[in-house]
């Protein structure tokens, strides 16, 4: 890739102003995205540290590394930190924030100050989470099931609930901002059918964030009220219903899975098209599938509760609906694959991650078919099968997609190229480490090892050792990008405006962009992913 020497002195969003205040009071969506990048990375490594301790404890069947209560706190806080403080904000708040205005040809999001507010809310929520962690933690499980959480634990349940409650508003405001921005701020000619799928994906995500998150807020509020004032909302002895909690919790937390995966699907669509030099196969179906997932995702929550005591017929209904939501996911996998057909495929780091995503998401999705199957779910729910399944979606899917996106847009974000060799190496290490960590857990689950077990029966040990070995490899894979991306900010090759020759408005402006993104408002006259047109006239025989 030819590096056109962009004079580094050229004013951009990074060097326009200096000093802490210029960051903490910025309303530039790109700077806010970087604030998010820093904060979610911090929480990712905290959550990852908990995961590593969990895996170390599980090396041996006996509970010998940490106390039972400590172990319970570790998996609780691993879940809470990763879900609410890393996965949910990861792609939307970092990449979405950075890219949506650039991709639709806008100067900023519709409400720049609200955008900053949502970062502050995230930080306040994060401080409550840190308070919880530092003061001895919480051991409800990330799911806060009642009546355990409301009547039987004396850890920092209210502080943790408050942390998530506050972070939830950050998520709502980000979603609201995206919806308004995508409706109102598209450049002339940027019609809905020309939007990059990344924008569609974040739009679908934003709908869930706005409609779903308030329900989580209410639910956690009820947990706090029941704890503080001894109300009987979920307490059966006072006429309450513990299943009501589960319905409310999963009404948000199942759609939240799609908050975590839809933006990743958007990232992969951008990358697969770029590195195959193709239009996306079936653009319209891809966009509709995103919205279909967001809508159907609201109708399947009770598939987390097949054995929880719901009626036979509601279990049947939710099982069937769960199969319906699998259809649009399948469509997406087929379309990504078909996009590669007769393409011109290259294997830079983002593409390696994207291919890894397709494979791992496929496995995560297919194992979802097992869990939606009532007769099998009875046996494997609440076992390591479930753990493996959702890590294939959330880590194999979302984290991989996030890393794919970070590498793909790193030149745009930082103005520098990451080192390609190290990028590829880390991608391989993560792929191997991930599979070694989580594949054995499918087997463990079918054998019957329940989740959240501090000590376990000896016949499960070999597979647990494999899993722990995988986790250490995975950890190395995560530290590498952290190191070389930081390195590249100073020493990386300077990136030109469009190092990948990619389609998309974000590549038409300089790297890094100026504060207001475009010198002139762009006018769009082409469809998304017009790689055939981009590649056609030039016919440059030089090496890429």
């Amino acid at each position: 890739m030819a590096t056109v020497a962009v004079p580094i002195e050229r004013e951009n969003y990074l060097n326009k102003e200096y000093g802490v205040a210029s960051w903490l009071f910025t309303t530039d969506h790109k700077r806010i995205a970087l604030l998010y990048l820093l904060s979610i990375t911090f929480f990712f490594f905290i959550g990852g540290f908990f995961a590593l301790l969990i895996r170390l404890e599980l090396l041996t069947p006996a509970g010998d590394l940490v106390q039972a209560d400590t172990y319970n706190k570790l998996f609780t806080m691993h879940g809470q930190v990763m879900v609410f403080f890393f996965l949910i904000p990861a792609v939307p708040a970092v990449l979405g924030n950075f890219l949506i205005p650039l991709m639709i040809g806008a100067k900023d999001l519709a409400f720049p100050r609200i955008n900053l507010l949502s970062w502050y809310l995230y930080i306040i929520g994060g401080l409550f989470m840190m308070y919880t962690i530092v003061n001895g933690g919480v051991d409800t499980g990330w799911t806060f099931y009642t009546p355990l959480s409301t009547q039987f634990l004396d850890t920092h349940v209210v502080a943790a609930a408050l942390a998530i409650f506050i972070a939830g508003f950050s998520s709502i405001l980000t979603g609201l901002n995206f919806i308004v921005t995508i409706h109102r701020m598209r450049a002339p000619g940027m019609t809905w059918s020309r939007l990059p799928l990344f924008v569609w994906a974040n739009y679908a995500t934003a709908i869930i964030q706005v409609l779903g998150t308030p329900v989580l807020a209410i639910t956690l509020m009820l947990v706090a009220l029941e704890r503080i004032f001894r109300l009987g909302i979920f307490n059966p002895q006072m006429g309450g219903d513990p299943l009501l909690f589960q319905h409310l919790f999963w009404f948000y937390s199942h759609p939240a899975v799609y908050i975590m995966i839809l933006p990743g699907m958007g990232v992969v669509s951008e990358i697969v098209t770029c590195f195959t030099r193709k239009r996306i196969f079936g653009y319209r179906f891809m966009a509709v599938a995103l919205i279909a997932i967001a809508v159907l995702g609201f109708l399947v929550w009770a598939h987390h509760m097949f054995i929880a005591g719901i009626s036979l017929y509601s279990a049947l209904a939710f099982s069937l609906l769960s199969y319906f939501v699998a259809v649009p996911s399948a469509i997406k996998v087929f379309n990504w694959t078909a996009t590669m057909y007769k393409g011109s495929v290259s294997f830079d780091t983002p593409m390696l991650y994207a291919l890894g995503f397709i494979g791992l998401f496929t496995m995560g999705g297919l194992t979802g078919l097992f869990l939606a199957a009532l007769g099998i779910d009875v046996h494997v729910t609440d076992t390591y099968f479930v753990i493996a399944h959702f890590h294939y979606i959330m880590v194999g899917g979302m984290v991989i997609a996030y890393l794919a996106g970070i590498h793909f847009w790193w030149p745009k974000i930082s103005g520098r190229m990451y080192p390609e060799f190290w990028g590829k190496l880390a991608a391989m290490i993560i792929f191997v480490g991930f599979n070694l960590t989580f594949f054995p857990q499918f087997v463990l689950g079918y054998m019957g090892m329940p989740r959240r077990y501090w000590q376990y029966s000896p016949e499960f040990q070999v597979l647990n050792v494999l899993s722990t070995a995988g986790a250490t490899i995975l950890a190395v894979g995560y530290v590498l990008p952290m190191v070389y991306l930081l390195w590249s900010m100073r020493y990386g090759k300077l990136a030109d405006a469009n190092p990948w020759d990619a389609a998309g408005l974000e590549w038409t402006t300089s790297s890094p962009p100026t504060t207001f993104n475009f010198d002139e408002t762009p006018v769009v006259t082409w469809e998304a992913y017009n790689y055939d047109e981009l590649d056609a006239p030039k016919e440059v025989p030089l090496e890429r």
Partner: protein
Amino acid sequence: MFENLPLWPVRASSTAGSVDALYIFLLTLCGVMCIGIFTMIAVFAIRYRRSAGNRAEPIEGSTALELTWTFIPLGIFIFIFVWSAAIFFRERTPPKDSTEVYTVAKQWMWKFQHIEGQREINELHVPVGRDVRMIMTSQDVIHSFYVPAFRIKQDVLPGRYTTAWFRATKPGTYHLFCAEYCGTMHSGMVGDVVVMEPAQYQTWLSGGAAAGSLSNTGQGLFQSLGCSTCHRLDTQGRGPNLTGVFGKPVLLEDGRTVTADENYVRESILSPTAKVVSGFKPIMPPFQGIVSEEQLNALVAYVKSLSAQPSGAAGTPNLKPPPGETPSTTQ
């Protein structure tokens, strides 16, 4: 370490085989899907890798293909749904003549009460070949009754009964796990299900020092708690006569009709005003906090025994039934 590496759980119940069959079908189906997709990706990646002469061909998509890969998966999914629902339906429909075991879960142990009167903790003895229905409740948080070898799992909730049933097919000792996180020693809330040959099981039953059957205990409580002063069995007292009530529809004061199942009896003891029988006044005091979960189970077993059909239906024929009742097994 490697001698401890079985990769498939023991199959020891009548439903385990059908669950495994569907699981193997899904493994095959999904294995084929995975290999298919991964092969396509690999072939495309190699065949169309970037090289000097290779230009991408513009392809917009194909509605026919899209519809194909929408509706074929949908058809397959519905097939899986129907198959799995059939298994689930069986798992949730206990056979008529099941033996019943009352279960109280608590942090962090399992307590079992056999209708014959035996009580066990963290160990459950059952005979091979008999349908066993677990009637379960929790005295604190939510637990989950999980026997991997039987492929059954059912959450156990405070404040209500949930049920599960199985028919063990192979003698042996199997894991019993709590599968719903329940606090500090969740992973210690484990036990054994001991499946015995019927003859052995009879020996085990008669070996215990059980003080009469569970419904017998219930009958004693029915007297000592004063239930019998209003719920008379010879005539209609101030409360309904409970003979023959269990399993039948009951007309309530507000016009609704409910079936008198275990949960109804349980609720009527703990908070009697919740569902008042038509023609009676809400005068019964609540027993919430007065009777323990085990006592409640005994009372429920007793009320059921008042509706038991004449002996011969099922149950334990070689046990002497208390006067005037057979061990209740009917609903």
